[in-house]
């Protein structure tokens, strides 16, 4: 249920005032509209999408840090 998957924001639709913030997000080749009203996403951000909503912007620096930490564990 709480499954959420990363996707890259490729287009943000401006829409009329009062309408919800939406973005076209690329899920590794498949593009789908996602609601971005719960985050402040920009084009090229990687977002974590759950039930049609981006719930967080992925931190690229932390993603690299995690891999770095794991590499260190191996040494």
């Amino acid at each position, binding site marked *: 249920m709480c499954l959420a998957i990363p996707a890259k924001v490729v287009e943000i639709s401006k829409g009329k005032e009062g309408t919800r913030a939406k973005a076209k997000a690329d899920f590794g080749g498949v593009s789908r509209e996602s609601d971005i009203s719960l985050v402040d996403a920009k084009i090229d951000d990687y977002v*974590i999408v759950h039930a049609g909503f981006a719930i967080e912007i992925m931190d690229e620096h932390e993603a690299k840090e995690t891999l770095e930490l794991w590499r260190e564990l191996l040494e």
Partner: protein
Amino acid sequence: MMFRYRNEVLAKERLEKLKDLNLNLRLMHVCGTHQDTLVKFGLNSMLKEAGIEVRPGPGCPVCVTTAKEIEEAIILARKGKVVATFGDMFRVPGERLSLADVRAEGFDVRMVYSITDCISIAEKTNKEVVFFSIGFETTAPTTASVILTRPKNFSILSAHRLIPPAMEALIKMGEMKIDGFINPGHVSTIIGERAYEFISKRYKIPQVIAGFEPLDVLIGVYMLAMQIIRGETRVENEYKRVVKPEGNEKAQHTLGEVFEPTECSWRGFPAISDSGLKLRGEFEEYDARKRYEDELSTVDIDYKEPEGCRCGKILRGLVYPDECPLFGKVCTPQHPVGACMVSREGSCNITFRYGER
């Protein structure tokens, strides 16, 4: 990038380290997706060899939804409302029937991927549309965000629940000693690290927020083991690439604007205070329980689990699915008796699919 998070050499090395430590621990997670990772990649059996048992707790929102809530959704469908919900909820039996059965009777029950699909349905019909909204803190802000737009001919039957109060309830029930919690990555994405701190402080239990790749979970277990060795009891975060210490404040704000905590029953548990979410007074018109109060007043069931079904004990982490006498015999994903066999995140369904605990 995903495959860089699946390093077999590193996994083996950490498992060896854990084996050497010979700790004999019982950990618990509260997330169906963690259970899927633990079983699918064989982590549970490997960890068991290292003396570490990871038990699933009440981490599947579909499984902890009560028969009474399902009966409410069934009544609304039979009274001519369009009832929409997530796919996993569709086949979970209430007192006797599921929403799928009610659709087979000819009533309008829809499966949706997102609450926004439900709004699209409401825009195209004059009928009243009710969203049976299940899910933990991960999902509740999406519901709140839609309610804020005040959609027409639309209401929700809230079955949203909060994870930290359930974790505390489990500890207080004291049925089993838990040495540490693996906390759910995407619930934590919303609520952050701090929301769990009271548990570590009050009950001296270490916690680690973990992601969903096999290495995320394994490193999470390792971090818990390290805390236990050092005698620490705090909240650590393995899933920093997504979970911020403060969580998603915008989502928390949206959630708080629309919902307030309320006492809530969970399948297998007594009522847990402040563990459910109900709409605040100013959004009352979107609350199906208020809007259809008369129609729902007939729901008064004294539900008992089907004879032999151990869903309640499974959700409290006390027994494993294959210890239930119905498992794989009369209860299968095709013909589920209990809720834990229906959802793909239910422990019984996962054990059945992969043939392992």
